[in-house]
């Protein structure tokens, strides 16, 4: 059989294909995005889409499942919060065709706003959670997840983490096997969750958890590797790999099913080993349950609840090894920044000049919070810029928010910002919302969305017109401005923030990294005219540096020619010339 080197996320997509999945819906979010992108290659067999948000994606998968086919939805951990509403009730409804929700957690916060643990969501929603440890298992477990889903009449969460999703390993490929579509039968006792029905289904949910817990010992995804019995380790996910590096001779109970836990299997294992360790990143989900059964073990007494683990971390914490390591060099940090030519930088340079505070949102433009821009004051979650601005106005009055705007990207606006804006209209807000429309979902690597005119699978489609959408809510003052026209933008921001009515400013300019979006010019300094004032450096474009004599150098390989530096220079000391 062919072996291929695959990203964890590619392996998850492959597993879905091999399992006969027919429908997938998702919203992009690191580290889950590549699953859907990878599904595109199976276009002939799987319908895969970008939904505006994770709640919608989960409901699409739910409908497909009820109709009788295998379906999936994918999201990052915080997306699971958005999807919580359908997830908690699909737990009661169960499935017809198998249904899997892929939840991608981000221990270590590579690209997220919190470090939550999706295993806890599984526990709370009474939904089984399974967790692979490498790319091969990512594919195999995905297939097994559908078997579990159909056998136990439940949606299943396949939990992955950044390290697993974004690591590559060898995977043995197999063929696609499509189970026959399950017949659909009208069954309101199972499919309509009104109180009388839900009461009965809750019984099913509780029994299901007991059954799965009991059956756990015979599931191939749970296995005991009995070795030296002095140390026994219960572990799951990527942590298993670190355990194998550090404790090759220890006995290991490797759990694939992390909710519900296979209780008897754990009790049996614990009884055979002298000292028991539970090694799990983030929350002590397994450890607390094990302790609640009266079993003594080590876990978070030695290991952190924050960030990723590693072999060295276990060597220090468990073996108390003193590692002879070089001290890291003390070097300047290199945090992520807005790209040269990014339209967000242009918008922020105007807000900075006007000393306006921004209630921020989730996307590349969150980077406007840090130096040298220092414009964004808050970032909570998708869509919160608009609703939190509204809260500030209701708390402090309309004069207070004349010094504020909400900033939100086009994809994030369509995700959940729309609802927040409706709330502003309905509840008579006067604040100013800026939609930074760069025609893509930028941070996650340029995915299409409902306003780009293209589907995930590359087909042309209707593009929602954000201007008309906002207008249709009844907002009178809606202005579209080119993000790089800083003069016009400054006038518009002054006028709209001063107004005693709600207004929306849509700044338009495509993301500079989008294919085919090339500025025709490059920026060139004219040292004779330079007064060394540093105005051009204020927007923080990485292509510009100050030379020793105080004049400016522009790195030709980095400059994208957007002309922002030229526009902010009061002395005409930067010009744009054709590339």
């Amino acid at each position, binding site marked *: 059989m062919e*072996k291929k*080197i695959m990203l964890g996320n590619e392996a998850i997509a492959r597993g879905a294909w091999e399992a006969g999945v027919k429908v997938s819906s998702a919203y992009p979010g690191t580290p889950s995005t590549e699953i859907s992108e990878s599904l595109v290659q199976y276009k002939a067999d799987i319908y895969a889409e970008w939904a505006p948000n994770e709640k919608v994606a989960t409901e699409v998968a739910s409908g497909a499942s009820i109709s009788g086919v295998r379906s999936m939805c994918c999201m990052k951990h915080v997306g699971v919060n958005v999807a919580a509403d359908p997830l908690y009730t699909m737990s009661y409804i169960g499935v017809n065709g198998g249904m899997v929700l892929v939840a991608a957690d981000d221990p270590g916060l590579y690209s997220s706003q919190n470090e939550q643990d999706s295993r806890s969501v599984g526990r709370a929603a009474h939904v089984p959670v399974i967790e692979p440890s490498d790319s091969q298992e990512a594919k195999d477990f995905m297939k097994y997840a559908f078997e579990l889903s159909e056998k136990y009449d439940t949606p299943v969460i396949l939990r992955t983490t950044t390290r697993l999703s*974004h690591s590559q*390993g060898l995977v043995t490929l197999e063929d696609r096997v499509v189970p026959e579509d399950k017949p659909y039968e009208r069954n309101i006792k199972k499919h309509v969750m009104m109180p009388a029905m839900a009461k009965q289904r809750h019984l099913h949910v509780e029994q299901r958890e007991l059954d799965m817990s009991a059956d756990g010992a015979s599931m191939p995804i749970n296995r005991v590797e009995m070795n030296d019995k002095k140390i026994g380790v219960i572990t799951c996910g990527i942590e298993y790999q670190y355990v194998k590096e550090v404790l090759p001779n220890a006995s290991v109970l490797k759990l694939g099913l992390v909710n519900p836990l296979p209780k008897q299997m754990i009790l049996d294992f614990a009884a055979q080993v002298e000292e028991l360790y539970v090694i799990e990143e983030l929350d002590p989900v397994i450890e607390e349950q094990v302790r609640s059964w009266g079993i003594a073990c080590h876990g978070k007494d030695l290991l952190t609840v924050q960030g990723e683990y590693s072999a060295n971390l276990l060597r220090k914490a468990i073996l108390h090894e003193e590692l002879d390591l070089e001290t890291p060099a003390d070097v300047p940090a*290199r945090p992520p920044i807005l790209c040269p030519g990014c339209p967000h930088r242009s918008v922020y340079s105007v807000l900075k000049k006007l000393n306006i505070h921004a209630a921020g949102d989730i996307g590349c433009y969150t980077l406007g919070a840090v130096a040298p821009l220092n414009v964004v004051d808050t970032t909570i979650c998708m869509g919160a810029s608009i609703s939190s601005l509204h809260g500030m106005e209701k708390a402090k009055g309309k004069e207070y928010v004349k010094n504020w705007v909400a900033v939100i990207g086009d994809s994030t606006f369509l995700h959940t910002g729309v609802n927040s804006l409706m709330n502003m209209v309905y509840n008579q807000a006067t604040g100013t919302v800026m939609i930074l429309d760069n025609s893509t979902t930028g941070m996650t690597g340029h995915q299409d969305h409902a306003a780009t005119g293209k589907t995930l699978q590359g087909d042309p489609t209707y593009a929602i017109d954000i201007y008309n959408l906002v207008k249709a809510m009844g907002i009178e003052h809606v202005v579209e401005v080119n993000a790089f026209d800083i003069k016009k933008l400054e006038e518009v921001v002054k006028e709209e923030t001063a107004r005693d009515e709600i207004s929306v400013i849509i700044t338009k300019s495509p993301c500079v990294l989008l294919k085919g979006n090339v500025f025709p010019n490059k920026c060139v300094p004219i040292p004779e005219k330079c007064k060394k004032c540093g105005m051009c450096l204020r927007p923080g474009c*990485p292509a510009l540096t100050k030379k020793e004599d105080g004049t400016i150098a522009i790195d030709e390989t980095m400059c994208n020619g957007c002309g922002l530096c030229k526009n902010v220079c009061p002395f005409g000391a930067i010009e744009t010339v054709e590339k």
Partner: protein
Amino acid sequence: METKNIMIVGVGGQGTLLTSRILGGIALHEGYDVKLSEVHGMAQRGGSVVTYVRYGDKVAEPIVEEGQADILIAFERLEAKRYAHFLKKDGAIIVNDQRMDPITVVTGAAQYPEGILEELSQKYKVYSVDAMAEAKKLGNARVFNIIVLGIAAQHMDYSKETWLTVIEKTVPPKTVEINKKAFEVGYSL
């Protein structure tokens, strides 16, 4: 075979992912077990990025840790210094001799360190190249990363033909020729 540990470090957008995929392809071609670990998402926007490549008879952990790297491929000087402590005592650094100021230096909050290569040379085997200049000679500045890879390849046990075969299979079809040329430049430096 004992597991080989390679790290590729640089600035988001410099092409560390393509380079690591070629290394992964080499390991697969030679029949080894291999794991790679990458960074996607926010850090790719001009931040410090690191990719790990591990191959051998059986690989468990997908990341390389402090004191374990055999080879550090650095696409920028400061990043070479940032990750040098990941090297084994006799490890080798292949560094693209280029300076890219991080935003902390641009805003004046920090100073770009001087004499990085000299300092690293006292502890490690350092091979430096102005790959950007070499790439421009080829007419495509973007292939500088493959030139750096060509130098690294001199310190690994695979034939030039193997490398070229894997490059052909890994890079986008339109860029096969230029990438092969870039590799040959690095391999003969």
